[in-house]
């Protein structure tokens, strides 16, 4: 059966991008702006296809997979560090206000330092390369993961805790059977935020002059004034962010069987 509601929803979402691309094409075709400032949509599309599948003599031709794997490696490593630190710490400090009083103020204070300020120090500590990127990504994703986990665990509806206790749950089983499931939507939204920060800090980390990676190529394409490639890379990085978010959502809901509301 043909689903008209779904079609209508797609139409509502897609009309604006379509209009924008038409205006973009019109502006470039009329040559109001030079092509090196704003290339035409067809040029960008051609560059994107070339970048991903190859076919030309350009140095970036067909190098997508190589750059992508480098960036993915850094994002995965940094995000994993941020998660492995943020989730357990958020659970412990959310569950136990006593311990929280010793650690939370320090974390809050350190959070006031913008992530980008850590870049020079990270370069001194880890040098140019994967270490700096992973560190920055871990740092950037940690705070949102930690804070969402902490909030979710700390502000579980007290009636659910009372219900659990009166039904026979011990304090430790309460953590697994009530607190964590109740906090799960909050933890998941923290992870999603953290993942989007990971892609942001990936670009920052790769701007330090590494050879491979989507962010590194983005910086290199600025040096060669290759605007079609710049726009292609922006589109690629944005799309990867959306795809990774979907994959995580799917993993959490389907594989872990958890319910997101």
């Amino acid at each position, binding site marked *: 059966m043909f689903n008209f509601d779904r079609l209508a929803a797609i139409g509502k979402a897609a009309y604006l991008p379509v209009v924008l691309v038409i205006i973009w094409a019109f502006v470039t075709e009329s040559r109001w702006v030079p092509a090196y400032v704003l290339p035409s949509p067809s040029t960008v599309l051609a560059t994107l296809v070339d970048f991903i599948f190859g076919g030309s003599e350009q140095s970036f031709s067909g190098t997508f997979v190589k750059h992508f794997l480098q960036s993915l490696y850094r994002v995965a490593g940094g995000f994993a560090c941020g998660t492995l630190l943020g989730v357990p710490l958020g659970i412990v400090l959310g569950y136990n206000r006593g311990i929280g009083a010793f650690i939370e103020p320090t974390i809050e204070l350190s959070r006031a330092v913008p992530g980008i300020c850590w870049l020079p120090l990270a370069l001194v500590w880890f040098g140019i390369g994967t270490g700096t990127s992973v560190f920055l990504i871990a740092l950037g994703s940690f705070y949102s993961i930690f804070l969402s986990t902490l909030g979710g665990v700390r502000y579980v509806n007290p*009636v659910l805790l*009372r219900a659990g206790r009166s039904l026979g749950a011990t304090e430790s089983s309460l953590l697994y059977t009530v607190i964590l499931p109740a906090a799960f939507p909050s933890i998941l939204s923290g992870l999603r935020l953290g993942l989007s920060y990971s892609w942001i800090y990936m670009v920052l980390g790769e701007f330090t002059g590494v050879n491979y990676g989507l962010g590194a190529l983005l910086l290199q394409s600025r040096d060669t004034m290759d605007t079609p490639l710049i726009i292609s890379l922006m589109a690629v990085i944005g799309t990867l962010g959306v795809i990774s978010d979907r994959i995580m959502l799917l993993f959490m809901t389907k594989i872990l069987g958890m319910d997101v509301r």
Partner: protein
Amino acid sequence: MTDALAAEAPVRTMPPSDDRPAKISFRNITKEFVSQAGGPAMKAIDGLSLDIAEKDFVCLIGPSGCGKSTLLNLIAGFESATSGEVLLDGVGIKGPGPDRGVVFQEGALFPWLNVLDNVCYGPKRLSVPRQRYLAEAHAILRQVGLSAFAQYLPAELSGGMRQRVAIARALINQPPVLLMDEPFGALDPQTRVLMQEMLLQIWERDNRTVLFITHDVEEALFLGSRVVVMSSRPGRVLEDVRADLPRPRDFSVLKEPEFVKVKADLFALVREQTIAAAADSAGSTRPSRIK
């Protein structure tokens, strides 16, 4: 003024405890709440004593804020008294436990568990063998008429169905004491009557000790074998009535003259307390009539 009306009200006050031993005892309970924002400490309950006999169905009514829920929270073990003793079978309450089932007003089901898993939550914590608790869960779901909804999530049910799940979840542990905190307060009148009848059917079968909080006089008289009226804050026992209408009861009892009369008396009493509570919270500037 309060005393004058209370004296007029022809409610039959009877000694509540008969020969049965007290299952629950409140001994000279005082409960104060300290304001987090630095306001003066508020006395919710002041020197209250109350014995509840085994297998009695006691309904507690009173104006809002009179401390009825606090009293239930004390016996449930969720809160502790500022002074006085709360005893279950003569032993002090130390915390919540599966020997006292609790049904909350609403929103206390685990939203991530389906109906069956909500009901099985208790026995799983108590390490009851799976085969046994599954059989019991299905039996109890049949009892509350929700067999067809075992796989549904709470969010997919109506308010009345959710409260039936909550009752089933509390009953499966077979607690000797059932504590109910305005469980039908958020339901529409028709659903509420059906729920009351269902609860009576269940209670008349196994005769647990029940403490049932409500602000609805009719509900209290219809369900309870004893109705305790609390005063406005700080809460004290104002009236203690044996509701010895014949059992098994059904909806028709609501029309009997005796029921109507006692209901009117109790309603007047609660109304008086509610007015007193409102005047009290509006400040102490009551107009003086002595002139």
